[in-house]
C-alpha cells in the first residue's frame, strides 16, 4: 500500500493548509489495530482558498499523482483561475497514483468549516512525515452530520470497538 508520507512532505514543503479527516483521519487516532478501518482513501480537507488549492494540486503533481474531477482529468491549465472556479463550487479533486493511493481533496466537511477544525487539529507522524489530523471528536461528529448509511455503519462499528478495547481501562486523569 502506498504511503501518504511523500505527499504529506510535498504539502509541507509548499505550506499547504490541510487536515486529514474521514476514516483515514480516524485511523491515525487508533491506539490499537482493532480500531484501524480498512480504507484506500485519504480525505484531505482544505480551506476555501484558491491559492492553497493550487499549491495542493502542485504537490500532488510533484508526487506523480494523477488529478481528476468527476472521473475526468482535471482540466488545464491548472492555474489560479481554475482553482477559483473550484472553490466557488466547492469542487472535489481526486489524486491517484498507479498503485492504490487515492487522495480526495475536499473543500467540504459535513457540519464544520475549515476554520473550526484547524485550530484543534493534532499532529501524528507517518514514516517521518508530520500529518495534521482533525480531532477524532470532529471526525465522528462530521460523520453523524453526513448521515449516510456508510457513516452509520462506521460509527456503530467504531463505538463498539472502542467500548470493547477500553472496557476495564481507567480513564486518563
Amino acid at each position, binding site marked *: *500500500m502506498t*504511503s*501518504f508520507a511523500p505527499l504529506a512532505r510535498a504539502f509541507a514543503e509548499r505550506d499547504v493548509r490541510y487536515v486529514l479527516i474521514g476514516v483515514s483521519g480516524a*485511523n*491515525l*487516532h*487508533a*491506539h490499537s*489495530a482493532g*480500531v*484501524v478501518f*480498512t*480504507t484506500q482513501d485519504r480525505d484531505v480537507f482544505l480551506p476555501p482558498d484558491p491559492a492553497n488549492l493550487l499549491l495542493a494540486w502542485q504537490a500532488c503533481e510533484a508526487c506523480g499523482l494523477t488529478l481528476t474531477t468527476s472521473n475526468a482529468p482535471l482540466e488545464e491549465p491548472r492555474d489560479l483561475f481554475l482553482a477559483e472556479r473550484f472553490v466557488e463550487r466547492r469542487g472535489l479533486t481526486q489524486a491517484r497514483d498507479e498503485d*492504490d493511493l487515492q487522495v480526495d481533496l475536499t473543500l467540504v466537511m459535513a457540519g464544520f468549516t475549515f476554520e473550526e477544525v484547524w485550530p484543534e487539529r*493534532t*499532529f*501524528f*507522524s*507517518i*514514516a517521518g512525515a*508530520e*500529518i495534521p489530523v482533525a*480531532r*477524532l*471528536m470532529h471526525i*465522528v*461528529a462530521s*460523520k*453523524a*452530520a453526513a*448521515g449516510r*448509511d456508510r*457513516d*452509520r455503519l462506521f*460509527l456503530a462499528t467504531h*463505538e463498539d470497538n*472502542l*467500548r470493547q478495547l*477500553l472496557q476495564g481501562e481507567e*480513564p*486518563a486523569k
Partner: protein
Amino acid sequence: MDEVTRRAWAAIEAALAWKPPEGPIVLSGEYLRLVERVEQLPENRPGTDKTWTERVLAQWKHAVENSRKIPRGTQRE
C-alpha cells in the same frame, strides 16, 4: 429441510427484510466519552509515530490479494 438450511433461510429472510434506520444520527453520551478518552491516551499524544497503522492496512491488503476461494469439499478438517 434440515435445521442448518432452515436457519440459513431464516437469516437470509431477516437480512432481506432489514431496513436501515432513518433520520439523523445521534451520538450517544457514552460514545462521545469514549472518543474523548481515546484522544487523551498516551498513544495519541501529538507527534506520535503512527506508521504502524499503514502497516496494518498493507497487511490487510496483502491478505485480501492473496486469498482464494477453496472449492467446496476440499477444505482441510
